[in-house]
């Protein structure tokens, strides 16, 4: 039983021939490893071209895609660390690997996929559908990470990636920065590849992707462009609803914001009541936190989904206030503000629902909510869900709490002062 005891005595029993055998074996294997020290998969870091962004557009030939690859190139920056230069190449091919094959002949470095941050899908590809085939490479090849971001480009993906930004950053990195800073605005969804694939897996929910667009001077943002008629900034606004991997329609800003509320995806947000007609005093503020809960409610025969939105807001601006308010009036005004905010939120939500009903695709994931809360009912509904989406009953319950009104109570006014209370 005691085959190879570690006790002192057994050492003496070991035959020297066995020792030599073992030593020889060890030397042989080490020699083998050392002598064939090839360079399997070995890549020095400076020989890599980190891939930052990739864009898909339709190619000229049917069945091909124009794959735009954006690499970062490091300048030898001396002591100041890394500075990046852009190097964007495109190739038409019917598979992504083929596109890399074509581009690699021109680029002298090995493309490194591990750093890919953004996949930009051109509008034409999205509308034509079928880009899941293009994504397969990204989810299969081991170097990619499932945490990269997906966006739809308004126009061509190639154009977005080839923009000369005024900040001199790589468009791909710029898009990533906007998306990662998106929590502060909560105005567009943040979609990673993994999330997209998971949503696809539910079958009932339609995926949704944020939309990126080049912004020219005067397109709601003003800046001094270097060349007239050439965009120098990038913006993410709105979203695109997909049926599987085919773009159905774009959501505008309000509908996207509604989606964010209903998806419980709002972290911080800027919100204002300027467009609200009923009230004369307008407010704007920042959402501190928000929480949306889902209740499946039945009112006798119909079963419907009830959204309960609970939001905390801090008021940053009060507009149209023409007199100084007393303490109790101020309390009333804040309550009024809460109602106004609630109305705005409800309007946004309703516009999203309206869009969903128009399109007939469940991008709000209502089906999943029902499945999660009432699996029995869902089983009966599942087969005809496609038809039900358009008139499934939905209700809202929005409650806003104003936490504070900033550093002052009443605003400064023109009229002769009655003094401070």
């Amino acid at each position, binding site marked *: *039983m*005691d*085959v*190879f*005891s*570690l006790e002192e005595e057994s050492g003496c029993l070991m035959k020297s021939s*066995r020792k030599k*055998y*073992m030593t020889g*074996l060890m030397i042989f*294997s080490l020699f*083998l*490893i050392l002598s064939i020290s090839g360079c*399997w*998969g070995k890549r020095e870091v400076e020989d890599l071209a980190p891939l930052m962004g990739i864009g898909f557009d339709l190619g000229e030939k049917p069945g091909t895609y124009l794959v735009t690859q954006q690499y970062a190139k490091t300048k030898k920056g001396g002591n100041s660390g890394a500075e990046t230069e852009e190097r964007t190449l495109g190739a038409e091919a019917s598979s992504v690997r083929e596109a890399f094959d074509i581009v690699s002949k021109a680029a002298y470095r090995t493309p490194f996929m*591990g750093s890919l941050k953004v996949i930009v899908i051109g509008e034409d590809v999205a509308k034509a559908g079928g880009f899941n085939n293009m994504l397969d490479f990204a989810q299969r090849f*081991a170097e*990619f*990470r*499932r*945490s990269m971001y997906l966006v739809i480009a308004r126009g061509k993906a190639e154009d977005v990636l080839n923009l000369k930004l005024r900040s001199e950053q790589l468009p791909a990195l710029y898009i990533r920065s906007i998306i990662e800073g998106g929590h502060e605005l909560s105005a567009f969804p943040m979609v*990673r590849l*993994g*999330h997209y*694939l*998971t949503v*696809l*897996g*539910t079958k009932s929910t339609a995926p949704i992707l944020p939309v990126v667009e080049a912004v020219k001077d005067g397109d709601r943002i003003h800046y001094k462009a270097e060349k007239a008629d050439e965009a120098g900034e990038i913006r993410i606004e709105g979203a695109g609803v997909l049926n599987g991997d085919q773009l159905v329609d774009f959501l505008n800003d309000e509908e996207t914001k509604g989606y964010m509320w209903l*998806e*419980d995806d709002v972290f911080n947000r800027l919100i204002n009541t300027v467009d609200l007609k009923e009230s004369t005093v307008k407010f704007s503020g920042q959402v501190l936190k928000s929480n949306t809960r889902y209740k499946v409610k039945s009112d006798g025969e119909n079963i419907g989904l009830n959204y309960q939105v609970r939001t905390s807001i801090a008021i940053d601006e009060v507009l149209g206030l023409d007199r100084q308010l007393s303490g109790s009036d101020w309390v009333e005004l804040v309550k009024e503000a809460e109602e106004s905010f609630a109305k705005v939120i409800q309007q946004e939500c309703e516009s999203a629902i309206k869009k969903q009903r128009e399109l007939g695709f469940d991008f709000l994931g209502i089906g*999943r*909510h029902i*499945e*999660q*809360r009432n*699996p029995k009912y869902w089983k009966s509904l599942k087969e005809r869900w496609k038809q039900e989406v358009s008139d499934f009953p939905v209700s809202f319950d929005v409650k806003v709490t104003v936490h504070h009104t900033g550093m002052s109570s009443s605003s400064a006014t023109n009229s002769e002062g009655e003094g401070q209370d």
Partner: protein
Amino acid sequence: MERISAHQFTTLGAGVLLGTTFLPVASIVALVGGRDGWMSVLPGFALGIPYSLMILSLMKYYPRRNLLQISEEAFGRWIGKLIGIIYLLCAIYLGGLLLGQVGDIYQTSIMPLTPLWIFFLGGIILVLYLTRSGIEVFARFSEITFPLIVVAILLNVGLSIPRIEQGELLPILGEGLIPIFKGSLKVIPFVMTYMLFLAGVIAYLPTDKKAIGQLKTGAWKIVFWAGILDTLIALIQMLVFGPTETIRLVYGLLALGKMVEVSRTVSGVESLFLGVWFAAAVIKIGSLFFVAIWGLESVFGIKGVKWRHVIAIIFLGIAFKNVRAPSLINEIGLVGEYIIMPFVSLWIPVLWGVMRWKRGAGY
């Protein structure tokens, strides 16, 4: 005679039972159990407890002997030998396949251009070194690496929490209890593979009364630890990927590792995680290697360094025969489900029953 303490038995057993199961487990249970698959891991593992207790109770009456020697006494020489041969073949074949999986995982996930034989060789050298150093060192090895494995898994799970998708776990028990039962059946081969090792390692366990009590607690702890960890893994994958993706991903835990980002300091920990996973693989393959050694010794009465090298070469040969990853994974499943599970699940209760009956009859 080498000895293993009760604590070493616990970590060694947990290391062997957990072994390499934590990579495929989520996919396996999600395939049959769907959204509730994660709940079927613990019930499946729990089957290990009666089996372990049966083996331990046999050990009490036949100290310092392994289950093969006890079988020879129970069923007679020839049936005993036959059992020994099946035991030996199971261990060698599965061990070789798992060695092949080491190569597959490394090549698929982090080192795509390195030839497979490097991974096979690295794995088998460590296993040989371990077996050469003896079961005591093997026990100490798992004593140190098992906590590392636990920490690595917990870290991987914990760091994946920010990636959890909304409500992927719901509805709970939407399909009733049957998927859970089916899922449990799928994890039983893991438990039975561990029984192969337990059947041999009992020869090194202490048999005084206090120790037996500790060993029994150890047997519970082993199942509990490995079961909880595998449950956690299946759970986090379900939470992050949802059922469709969990089934589809071959090595889901590594995909999770790839999604980890610790602010901007570390992105993707799967290559570090694989280093720890490698220890688990070495424990698992090492345990099967020991099983093969014990099998050879009790069936043919041969032992020694030469035969260890023969086993190693057979392991390598099996690994090289199975370089096609999809069929390799399929094969591992088949061996577990259709050879090891029926064999062990019959052998141990029958042996236990016969020995009880014999003792009762006054032997």
